[in-house]
């Protein structure tokens, strides 16, 4: 029996006082998409969806929910992969997608202030037109920035530029009791007490609701060149990465990919990949002021790669060439999804020197268990995406195989001193594995923080660190 209040007509009437009825979805008006995210197996309909347009509206809804003890689940574009935006306790879902405005571009401080519903791809386009650059580059470009902040999304440029947390300067948030509060700001440095802003980034909507974000921008690099590097074996490809990382040049991205995933992507996009001579590839990207400057960087990287057995280095130095590769890379998740009936993922991150060991482990596991497991990932930052495919397994066998495969992989990641999630978050799906991987004291601290922010536990209950 849930401890949360079940909504009735009086709640609808009350919430309609704060938010116009036409922006509230109730009972049958709630579309199926609000019951799940993009990958997690968990599904549950909220009882009400409120499409907020301001922090003030969110504040009133939260205050009401807090008083009545109604569960509140924030949701952006629903592109999450671990169930963070699934309303497990039903209640109210706060949809932030209408809060999709650019509020301010401050070129003196190089910051961009946005509402949480702005899409990642819109941010990229908006700032690049002005010669500026928002570096975090997760594959899912239709995610909202609010969602990116909630999971501390990483993406492909993390090797050189870091992750979302590194580009959030300040936030406006609504606390569980309805208080509207600002954390951080436009300042570059900040040693003023505990950094609540950094704590909120990555908290998956369990601590508060983000209603505004001040993002840090950089000048846009003038040029970039990608190198697609075919290797005879995946082990050779990944084995080269630590040597590249420890050389004096820093690529913006270092990805690894295997032939079979590339073929899935060719089929999914209906477009041939520009090369097919090898089973394994590294994909590197460099940026800089000019093509000449960049070619100096990759000359030294080329020597390293060739010494390690690379068959060649293919140069993507124009928009068309880069698009032919990166479009394929960007479609990997959807392409793998399209190649099977159902799948689940492991988003572990291991020290960069251990990527090869982990990938080899996954290959062996695949053979041992006799199931299809596909992987690709950010070789440069140690974050791997491993997908376990259901194919034609029945419910029982799938549950059994999935559990076993997950268990083995997380165990291996722990052994290599890795972490449960590199960028997708914990949500519901990875909760047991987080619990196993962190010290008890660490979980206790997290639970204490959650209680301090949300004493009545109304915000996104049962996620991350709470059973």
């Amino acid at each position, binding site marked *: 029996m849930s401890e949360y209040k079940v909504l009735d007509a009086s709640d609808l009437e009350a919430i309609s006082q704060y938010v116009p009825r036409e922006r509230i979805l109730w009972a049958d008006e709630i*579309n199926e998409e609000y019951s799940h995210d993009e990958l997690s197996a968990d599904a549950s309909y909220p009882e009400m969806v409120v499409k907020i347009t301001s922090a003030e509206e969110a504040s009133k809804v939260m205050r009401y929910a807090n008083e009545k003890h109604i569960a509140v689940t924030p949701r952006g574009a629903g592109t999450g992969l671990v169930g963070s935006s699934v309303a497990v306790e039903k209640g109210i879902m706060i949809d932030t997608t209408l809060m999709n405005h650019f509020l301010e571009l401050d070129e003196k401080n190089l910051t961009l202030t946005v509402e949480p519903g702005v899409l990642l791809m819109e941010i990229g386009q908006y700032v690049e037109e002005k010669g500026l650059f928002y570096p975090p580059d997760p594959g899912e470009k239709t995610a909202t920035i609010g969602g990116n902040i909630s999971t501390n999304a990483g993406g492909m440029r993390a090797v050189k530029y870091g992750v979302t947390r590194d580009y959030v300067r300040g936030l406006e948030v609504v606390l569980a009791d309805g208080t509207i509060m600002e954390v951080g700001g436009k300042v570059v440095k900040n040693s003023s007490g505990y950094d609540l802003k950094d704590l909120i980034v990555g908290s998956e909507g369990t601590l508060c609701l983000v209603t505004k974000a001040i993002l840090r921008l950089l000048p846009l690099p003038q040029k970039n060149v990608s190198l697609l590097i075919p290797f005879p074996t995946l082990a050779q490809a990944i084995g080269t990465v630590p040597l590249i990382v420890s050389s004096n040049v820093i690529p913006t991205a270092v990805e690894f990919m295997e032939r079979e995933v590339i073929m899935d992507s060719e089929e999914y996009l209906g477009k*041939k990949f*520009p090369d097919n001579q090898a089973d394994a590839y590294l994909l590197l990207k460099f940026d800089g002021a000019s093509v000449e400057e960049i070619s100096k960087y990759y000359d030294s990287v*080329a020597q390293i790669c060739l010494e390690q057995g690379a068959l060649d280095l*293919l140069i*993507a*130095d124009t928009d068309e*060439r880069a698009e*032919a590769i990166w479009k394929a890379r960007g479609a990997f998740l959807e392409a793998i999804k399209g190649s099977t009936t159902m799948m689940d993922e492991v988003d572990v991150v291991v020290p960069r020197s251990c990527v090869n060991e982990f990938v080899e482990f996954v290959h062996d596991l695949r053979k041992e268990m006799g199931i299809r497991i596909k992987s690709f990932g950010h070789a440069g930052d140690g974050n791997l995406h491993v997908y376990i495919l259901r194919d034609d397994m029945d419910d029982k066998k799938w549950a059994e195989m999935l559990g076993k495969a997950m268990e083995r992989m997380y165990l291996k990641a722990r052994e290599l001193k890795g972490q449960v999630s590199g960028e997708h978050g914990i949500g519901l799906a990875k909760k047991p594995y987080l619990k196993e991987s962190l010290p008890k004291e660490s979980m206790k601290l997290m639970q204490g923080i959650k209680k301090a922010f949300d004493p009545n536990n109304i915000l996104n209950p049962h996620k991350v660190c709470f059973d």
Partner: protein
Amino acid sequence: MEILVCIKQVPGSNKVEVDPVTGVLKRNGADSKMNPYDLYALECGLKLREQYGGRVSVITMGPPQAQAIIKEAYAMGADAGAIVSDRAFGGADVLATAHTLAQGIKKFGKFDIILCGLQTTDGDTAQVGPEVSEQLDIPCVCNVKEIKGVEGDNILVDMEMAQDIEHLKVSFPCLITVQKDIVQPRLPSYLKKKDTENREIVMYTLKDMEDQNKNNYGLNGSATQVQRIFPPTSDKVQVTWDDPADVLAEKIYSTIKSRKLLG
């Protein structure tokens, strides 16, 4: 089999700027690339060589810095390259360009198949290819969507027409222009780039040409004069629908279907 691919250097960015005073395209040598359409022609040439043997040569007309795209073609696998370059060739329209290229091609060698991209991203006329064939007095097929193969001294191609597709058998020597996406162009190879760093690029100027009449080249030889170049007005159409979900779904589906975005 001797294959020649005509290539052109174009501005590196799609955001082409027009000089408001002279009406001439602003060409910045530091930011240029091979015409993306020519990459498809070059890839077709390289594939034909792989399948049937022979040599792939490239030719371009342009200022000396256009040699960069010949080097690029070498890094993709071309065997030989020539540039047709002379101040006297400047300001050429499609007719004068085709004449100059045809003169250069005659000088460069005998070719069985001449491949061109459908059009360029800066000039956009799609006429230089066919006009070169006219000047060389050889058959031409445009809009080729598939090369089926080579049979003796013939090439088999599918030409896309507005309503139908024509299967054609064309005898050598001939010129064909290929559509975008006919093949996926390969990427330049670092190893080939290093290997061909010092490979010769043949240079032809006016004095090398069979036709020495200056009036057939450049601005003088142009039948058309550009009066004004200006950015086109956008023909982007935006429609907003505000209907229930099921009506919207139907509308979106029928729109996608009528625009042939769905198979």
